Structures are given as C-alpha cells and as structure tokens.
C-alpha cells in the first residue's frame, strides 16, 4: 500500500439512499474516491463500507469528519496506519485457445488464482489478494488478450481481536459507547 492511499471503514445504517448521501458528499466536497465497496456487516441492518481515498489530493481528516457527520453513518474509522488485512477480488476474462490455455493456467496457479469458467475461446480467472498482486497478474496476462476485467475494490479489517468499528458491534451497546465525536478533537 502506498503512503498516499488511505483506507476508511464505516458502519452505516441500511437506509434508502445512504450510498447516494455518501457519494454526493464526496462529489460535492471534491474528495477523490479511489474505490468503495459495500456489503452486509455483522450488525443487523447495518452495512460496512470500505473506502480508499487518495490522501495526496484530499484531506483524509476532512473526509473522516464529513463522513462522520452523515446521520446514517454510525461509525467511521481510518485504518491505514493500523496493521490491517486488505483484500481485493478480480475476475479476469482472457482470450485463449488450446494452444495457450496451459500457459495461462500455469500463471494463474502461481498467483493461487482459480479458473472459474472455461470456454473454447476464453478463460475466466478469479484472483484474490492485495492490489499489487492483482496488478501484477493483470500485467502478466496482458501478454495474452484480456477481454474483461472486473475488480471489487478493497475490503479491509484490522488484525487482532478488536476491530476499528469493534466498539459498536452489537446494536444495543449505545450506552457504553460514549460520545460519538469524542476522539475527533485530535486533528
């Protein structure tokens, strides 16, 4: 991970339009979003977002605070500095035939990627890992003809028992949380 890329994770209420609120915020304030992923979290009725922001063009502290202001955002945390596990998945469809199929499979194997679809004229590879690993695999596959790439963007979590949003796991623990903005004074 390069130093300018920052990873933010956020727990958000599953309300209609919540992604719209967040993307509108980024657009309006000119924040540059590199990737965003969203899916269910361990908390019922809450989704988890992982947002990668380019810190060289955007004040990461402003992004965090502005996100925190969105009423539907329950908690937001920057985890770039922490020890984190970050993964991305990609599906890559490569033009192939019987002549080069073996070579492509060999490259995929080196990356612990799996072949998820085979057709007479193509192979689809599924790879999981950090961005650099996926970039490298794509680079190697450019030697063939890549027909399609679909990448998920980064999902991330802190290592160890307590996650960045750990203090809010479980919906009924509002009382022991203290003020939401309590930590925000450190700019």
């Amino acid at each position, binding site marked *: 991970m390069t130093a300018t890329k920052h990873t933010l994770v956020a727990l*958000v209420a599953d309300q*209609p*339009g919540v992604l*719209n609120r967040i993307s509108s915020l980024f657009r309006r304030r000119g924040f540059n979003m590199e990737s965003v992923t969203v899916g269910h979290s361990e908390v019922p009725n809450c989704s988890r977002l992982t947002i990668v922001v380019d810190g060289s063009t955007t004040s990461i502290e402003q992004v965090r605070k502005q996100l*925190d202001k969105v009423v539907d955002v329950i908690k937001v945390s920057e985890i770039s500095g922490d020890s984190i596990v970050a993964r991305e998945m990609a599906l890559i469809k490569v033009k192939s035939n019987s002549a080069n199929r073996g070579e492509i499979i060999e490259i995929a194997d080196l990356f612990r990627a799996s072949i998820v679809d085979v057709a007479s004229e193509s192979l689809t590879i599924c790879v999981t890992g950090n961005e650099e690993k996926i970039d490298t695999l794509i680079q190697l596959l450019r030697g063939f003809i890549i027909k399609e790439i679909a990448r998920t963007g980064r999902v991330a979590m802190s290592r160890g028992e307590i996650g960045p949003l750990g203090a809010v796991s479980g919906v009924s623990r509002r009382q022991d949380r203290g003020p939401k*903005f309590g930590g925000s*004074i450190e700019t």
Partner: protein
Amino acid sequence: MKLSGAQILCESLLKEGVEVIFGFPGGMVLPLYDVFPQYPNLRHILVRHEQGAAHAADGYARATGKVGVCVATSGPGATNLVTGIANACLDSVPMVAITGQVSRPFIGKDAFQEVDITGITLPITKYNYQVLDTSKLATTIKEAFYLAKTGRPGPVLIDIPKDVFTELTEFHYPPEVNLSGYHPTLQGHPSQVKKAAKLINEARQPVILVGRGVQISGAYDELKQLAENVQIPVISTLLGIGCFPGSHVLYYGWPGMHGMVYANLALDDADLVIAVGMRFDDRVTGKVSAFAPKAHVIHIDIDPAEIGKNVRVDVPIVGDVKAVLKALNKQVASAQHLDWLNQLDAWRRQHPIEVRDSSSLLPQYVVHQLYEVTGGDAIIATGVGQNQMWAAQHYVFDKPNTLITSGGLGTMGFGLPAALGAKVGCPDKTVWCIDGDGSFQMTLHELATLVQDEIAVKIAVLNNGFLGMVRQWQELFYKKNYVATPLSCPDFVKVAEAYGIPGLQVKQREEVKSAIEQAMAYPGPFLIDFRVEPEENVYPMVAPGSSLAEVMIAPEKPRKVSGSPKLS
C-alpha cells in the same frame, strides 16, 4: 384511535411546540390543509411564494431560537423552497420543511408535479426523509425536529406523499429518538480546555472572534465573563453580531470584507485568536494563508468537521460553545491587556465607522437614524448587498438575535420574508427590514402577506437605483463597466399603497427622522422609500484575494459629523 397522516403531522407539530407554519397549499398537500381547521393552535401564514415561506421560517427561527416550519406542495412548491433551505443550511438555522409528494404508486413515474426533492435537497439539508410508511411518520417528525435543533442546527426536510397524508394509522409520538449515528459532543475535552486556558493566560495580544454558534448556544454571559475577566477584545462575524453588546467597551466590530479596519488589524496583529462558534468563512478571513499570521488559534465549535477545514488550528475544542466557555472560564486568570487595547483604540480613532458629512441623503445616515429613533431596540432583517453591510456597520446591536441577515448564502430577497417571520415570532418587538431596491424587488410580493396576516413589519428601502454591491465591484474591479446593474424600480410607495400599506418617499436628510417616527407610530406595516446617493460605496473593503491587513478605506477621508454613531 386511528388518525390520518395529516392529523398525525399536526399532532406531532403540536407536541414539538410548533405555533406557526409558513406555507403555501397545492394539490399534494391538500389533505394536510384540509385538517388545519381542526388545529386552531397551529397558525398558518399564507405566503405569496414558497421561497418566502422558507425565509420566513428562517427569520422566525433566528429571532426566537425555535425551530421554524414551512410547508409546500410537491414539484414547483418544493423546488421554490430550495433557496430558503440552502440559506438556512449555510447559516445553521433550525428548520423543518415539509413538502407534499405525489402518491406512492406514482413516485418515479414523472407524475404531474413530481420532483425528487429529497435528491435535490440532499446536499443542502442536515438530513432529509421521504415517508413511505405512514406508521413511521410520527417517528420521522420526532427525529426531524431533534436533528434540526440539536448539535449544529440546520434544515431537515420531510417529503410526504399524498396517500400517506390520507392513510389512517395509530398515533403514538415517541418520547425520544434513537439515532445511532448522531451524538453531538457537548462537553469540551478537558485536556483541550486546559491547553486553551494556558494559551489564553500566556497571550499578550489575544482576540476573541465570535460567530453564530454563540447565539445558538446562548453563551452570552459566558462570553462576557471571559472577555471582561481577561480583558480580551471581542470581534464578531456578521452572524455573530449582537451576541456581545455592540456598545461594550471591549467590542471592536467585525472583520472581513466590509468589516472595520480596527477589527481587521486586530486579527492581523493578534498573537492569539480564540474563535468561538464560527467557521472561518472566506468573507471573514480574507486571503487564508495571510490570516492572523502571528496568532495561535483556539477553535471552539460543535461541528468537528469545521475544525481545520479552512484555517490551521493549534487547539481545537469540539463541544457546545456555552459548555466549553463555562469550563474555560474556570481555568483562565484575570488579566489586563492595556497596551493591546490602547492599540486597538488608536486604530479605531484613526478609522472609525461614521457617517460622512454630506448634503445628499446617504444610506449610512438612514441606518444611523433608524438606530437613533428605535433606540437600538429593534430586530433588523436585511437584504443582501450594500444595504446589508450598511445596516451591520451603522446600527449598534446590543442584544443577541437582533440582526437577521443571510450570511453564508448571501440570498437577495431574504429581508422582507425574514422580517415577516421574525415579527410573527416576536410580535412585541419592533421589526425593521432594511433592504436594497434590488433585493426588495426579489420578494416584495410578501407585502400582501403582511397585510393579510396583519404583520407590522416596517420597511426601509435604501433605493439607489443600482444593484449597488455589484455596481461597486464593477466600479472597483471592472473599470466602471456598469453592465446590468442600473436598475429601474417601480414607485415603491405606490406599490405599497396598492397592497394596502402606507408609505413615504424620502429624498432629503432632514426628512429622515420624522419619516421613521411616522412609521413607528403607525400600528401596521409601513414602507419608506429612501432615495439615497446612487453611487455610494461600502467601505472599508478587503478586496477578494487580499489579506485583512490590506483593508482599503474610502478614498476621501470622511469628515466627522456631530452625532455620528460610535461603536465604542
């Protein structure tokens, strides 16, 4: 017993203590208007344009501190509210805007008068709702009011489809809200307060810079205690005017683009700026990189996102201004800053705010006379432009929430409807709208509202036949290329008369005082059309992109007039 959505809305408004609604009916809110007669304690004021409803709710909220409520129908009704909502958002005004929407089966079908108002207002509201489940209407209203008035206040919009207004459901008003993503910090962090106190105790040339946050949290006594105890000069933003008495010996006016020279120089020379409930707007800071170059900055604000947004901050304190100042007052030591205050006084003597001697009718003179005749005891709502700056410069505001003006959005046309809302909220106060001829023409149709609902707003139009502030910029920065700024106006006295409002035209300075007295003596609304000097400019001025130290004064040194206003 089951109630309709419309009844639930009215019941909920009563539970929230709402007494007045500014609105305009239409197809999709008809079921709501249909039940209004059942709720005589909800006074509905019919405006002439929905923008007026939003501004009136805004003026009402600023004057009273309560949440302002406005209602509009779907489509054009809703979009007409947009300017007023944005205005309230930028100035942190508590407001709940209710819009009708097409019935649920029609949503998304481009039905007649359908517009995506929640989408449109998303970036200009604190939060907004579209109620698709009638059983959630009461909870939504509870949340909306809570969000509008707590933390950093702001407008909240509730979009309600017609068939939700008519659907019957059980009414239960929740006693409290459950918003897991919303917990404003009220108490300042003790270690930050300690750091701030240390800086204050060490400062030799401190300045307190206060904004609307002080008005919102009502921290007048705490502010006064801090200023007097430590002998720190106080300056305010435009929206902070009045939260510290304008005639107090420690008050040094307001800085920024048209602020006082001494306030600008104070910031430029200060070694400590204690910013309280303000957000370092570009009109206040001038060139940001040159703002308060010698100073440490303490920034107290309830909104953490404002801290460090525009200006570097040494000691940030997130919290409610009143609570933080209370904590701070316990830790600061009494002090004198005689040399510093003498310096400020010298600057003030050198560049006072005063009315130039002139045989022509100067707008500044009119404002000064308004101050004299009202004894400073009036609520002043303004338009936007030169009229606004002159009102803020030449009227002395000793009490909080008495200057009602559009700061962040700079909305021309704000004055009259805002004055209307303020008068409805404070019927016992004298309310003057000081407006420009350009600004006034944007919303003068609300004169009809004054008449129909018997709202005794007094109007002073500073009529110079120009879009004055734009003309001033053209004069100074566009080689007097007066494009689209000369402004033809109707005879405002005749216009007022047509609406049923008496008026006077004033061209001579000798007539000013008696005209104002006549307006004050009249029991209802009254208009005075002051034909003022056409090309008078607002000074001092910090040109855009310049630092506060580069503040320009009027080209000719103004001569002193006896009885001119003093801000000290």
